[in-house]
């Protein structure tokens, strides 16, 4: 990297909120999240030089585009601020972070504000499921199909089953862990919901199959949520740290990143990886790239992972793709308790997309904010003791766009 990129903190809205019920426009989400982030970091708004927004489908969910402009609305000091919006389905938030960090690496700006946002409870679940279908190849994979994404990720499980064998009880355990972790996260959507491994294993009127082998308990949530983080150059961070009496070595930075895009269609992905040990090799490569850039030898050099569990099958895939186990043996890490909050390498201490919630275009930013919280020891009830490095994996589509960050302190 030419210039290091520091993370100065940020803010997340309560993912249990329903902003439509509050009769709020998406601009309210921008206002609350930016106000909250400015308060949390005590960054003077005049210092912000550029703004990036990650969002998937506000045009569909809220009939509102041109979201970068809403950053300018959040504070009088932002008048004239250069802004833009980034879209890569569920990876939109990470793409916004990549753009912001690239600008800082290039020396173009010193302080960037990144907001990930999605308002999804504006429509019923069937209509929302159809909107989400636009993250696949809509005409081929989603048009006229109810809830296309559970079906696509059910097929990911089927592919694992075919290549290596897959037991649904391992998927149920993934769900139970994410819900249990979410109970410790005061901003998680499902923190007050009931879940147990017994329920996750059950198949009945409350836990029916909605797409192939995917049951309700295997799914992430429909979430209204906004997240803001500030990324800064070394020059700004030195000034920021000095003014607050902080040690710059204790301020987290983006140590590495990875970003690859696979063919959009699920069949094409599977065909392409037929002879590869990994079902989603481009996802594996994004992880390896991030580790290489971060000079991280392997996954055991990180202390926790925030991964993209849009369905339990995607977390199952992440376990071997990160390298916790050999390909196809993710079940070992599940059975041995490795990924639990007090395990050797906790996955999704926040509760992930299943427990914390999944505001689609915001999730990548939420993961990085949670990584920041972990490595600064400020994650509260879901803190992983002594975490110094945390990896994220954010995926758009059916394993199409994969983005990974390694966030850490020295």
């Amino acid at each position, binding site marked *: 990297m030419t210039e290091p990129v520091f993370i100065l903190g940020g803010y997340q809205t309560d993912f249990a909120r329903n902003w439509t019920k*509050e*009769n709020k*426009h998406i601009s*309210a989400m921008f206002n609350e999240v930016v*106000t909250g982030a400015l308060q949390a970091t005590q960054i003077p708004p005049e210092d912000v030089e550029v703004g990036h927004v990650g969002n998937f489908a506000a045009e569909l969910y809220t009939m509102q585009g041109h979201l970068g402009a809403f950053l300018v609305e959040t504070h009088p000091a932002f008048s004239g601020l250069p802004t833009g919006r980034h879209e890569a389905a569920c990876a939109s938030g990470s793409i916004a972070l990549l753009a912001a960090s690239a600008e800082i690496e290039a020396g173009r700006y010193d302080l960037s504000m990144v907001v990930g946002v999605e308002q999804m409870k504006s429509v019923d679940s069937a209509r929302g499921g159809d909107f989400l279908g636009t993250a696949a190849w809509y005409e081929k994979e989603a048009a006229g199909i109810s809830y296309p994404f559970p079906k696509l990720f059910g097929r990911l499980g089927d592919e694992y089953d075919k290549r290596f064998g897959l037991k649904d009880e391992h998927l149920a355990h993934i769900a139970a862990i994410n819900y249990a972790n979410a109970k410790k996260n005061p901003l998680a959507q499902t*923190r007050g919901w009931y879940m147990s491994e*017994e329920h996750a294993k059950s198949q009945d009127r409350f836990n029916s199959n909605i797409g192939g082998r995917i049951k309700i308990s295997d799914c992430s949530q429909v979430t209204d949520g906004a997240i803001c983080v500030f990324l800064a150059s070394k020059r700004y961070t030195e000034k920021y740290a000095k003014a607050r009496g902080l040690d710059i070595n204790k301020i987290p930075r983006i140590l590495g990143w990875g970003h690859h895009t696979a063919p959009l269609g699920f069949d094409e992905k599977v065909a392409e990886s037929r002879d590869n040990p990994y079902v989603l090799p481009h996802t594996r490569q994004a992880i390896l790239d991030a580790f290489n850039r971060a000079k991280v030898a392997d996954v055991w050099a990180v202390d926790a992972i925030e991964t993209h569990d849009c369905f339990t099958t995607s977390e199952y895939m992440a376990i071997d793709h990160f390298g916790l186990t050999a390909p196809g043996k993710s079940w070992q890490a599940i059975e041995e308790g490795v990924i639990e909050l007090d395990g050797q390498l906790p996955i999704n201490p926040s509760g992930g997309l299943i427990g914390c919630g999944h505001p689609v275009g915001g999730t990548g930013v939420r993961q990085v904010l949670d990584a920041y919280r972990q490595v600064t020891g400020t994650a509260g009830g879901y803190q992983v003791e002594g975490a110094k490095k945390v990896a994220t994996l954010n995926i758009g589509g059916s394993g199409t766009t994969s983005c990974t960050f390694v966030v850490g302190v020295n």
Partner: protein
Amino acid sequence: MTTETLPAVRLEKVVVLGANGAMGAGSGALFASGGCEVTLVARDIGKAEQALGQIQGIAKSETIINSVSCATYDDLATVLAGADLIFECLAEELSLKKDIFARVDAVRPPNALVATVSSGLSIREMSAGLSQGFQSHFAGIHLYNPPHVMTGVEVIPHPAMDRGLVAAVEDLLANRFGRAVITCTDTPAFAGNRIGFKVLNEVAQLAEKHGVQLMDTLVGPYTGRAMAPLATVDLVGWDVHQAIVDNVAANATDEAIGSFTMPKYMGDLIHHGHLGDKTPELGGFYRKFTLDGKLRSEVLDPASGKYVAVDPGLKVPFVEQVRAYHRSGRYQQGIDCFMEAEGAQADIARKVILGYVSYALNRVGKDEVVATYADADRIMTAGFNWAPPSGLVDLIGLKRTAAMLKRYDLPSAPVLDAALRGEIPTPLFNLPYVTPGRYFAG
């Protein structure tokens, strides 16, 4: 008291008495969700079993009842034998509760906790004359309805209960069952209902002169609540409303006790069976019915006791302006607009809201209902879905709050006076992870 120093409290087996009511099933679901073994007790086994289905519906799980069993009062001695907590959810009648507690006292294991879900009856009276062992293990644990949605809970310990034990129970409720917990003194209606129903009944009183629809508009969701006040009374039920305000009016004394006198028109209609949403054909403040396949809504005219069509064109200009600000998350500008609005209608609305702030903050202190203003904030947010009183003060501004209270002849409160003297830091609102803005609807 830190968690490390709390006495260990076992809470593995919970017996719910009166399990077939809404609070019985809701409480059963809460304890089962937290991993407890739960026994549901009702008059007959069929009634207890009905609650099983309700619990499944609340938890959205069939398997949750694998740890739940059913019994009748005939089995009381057997059922209570292994209980860690005996949780009473009978109807809100003192004599009923006293009777069951006398039976419980005779057979309860010595360390079993006993709690009532009562929303405002006296904890001391309920347990008067019972054994010392009972009283030292007895508390009110007032969950809000429905418990899986509203996380607020008031703990009202019997004076004989050990402080460490109280703290341990509160710690469990907060950390194992995800509750927003406050401790209250044993005063009528405790904290949330005392503060909340003062406002609701005051709006019902004002509706006599200004009309139901206008009052629900003036004190509507934009003032910091999920639902308009009189629609809330319909949801709660007029009988419940009456029981709460009558209890406070008869047993409490404070600077605004007149606000608890239920308006005569409500008493007359209750007499004729109007109880709100639970009597849909008769109605409450509103009456909904289907005509020509369309859902229509009528509103009560308190003067005549008749129902008239809801006026779809009723819009109050300043209310619309405030709502527009809130819709974009501009809460400060919204409240500024509210405070600066001119005219009699704005005065009516402001007087109710400032009255809420004044009344809530005056329930804080040594001889009052709660110890800190954060307790009032916590129960009004997590129990009522209303904006926190101190959060309103922050948005209105400390000096402007003081001026407004004076203008409407409302008493200031010790916490406000202390803040004005600079003795406590501002902004006042200090609950972590709670955003006041969420309560100001657009």
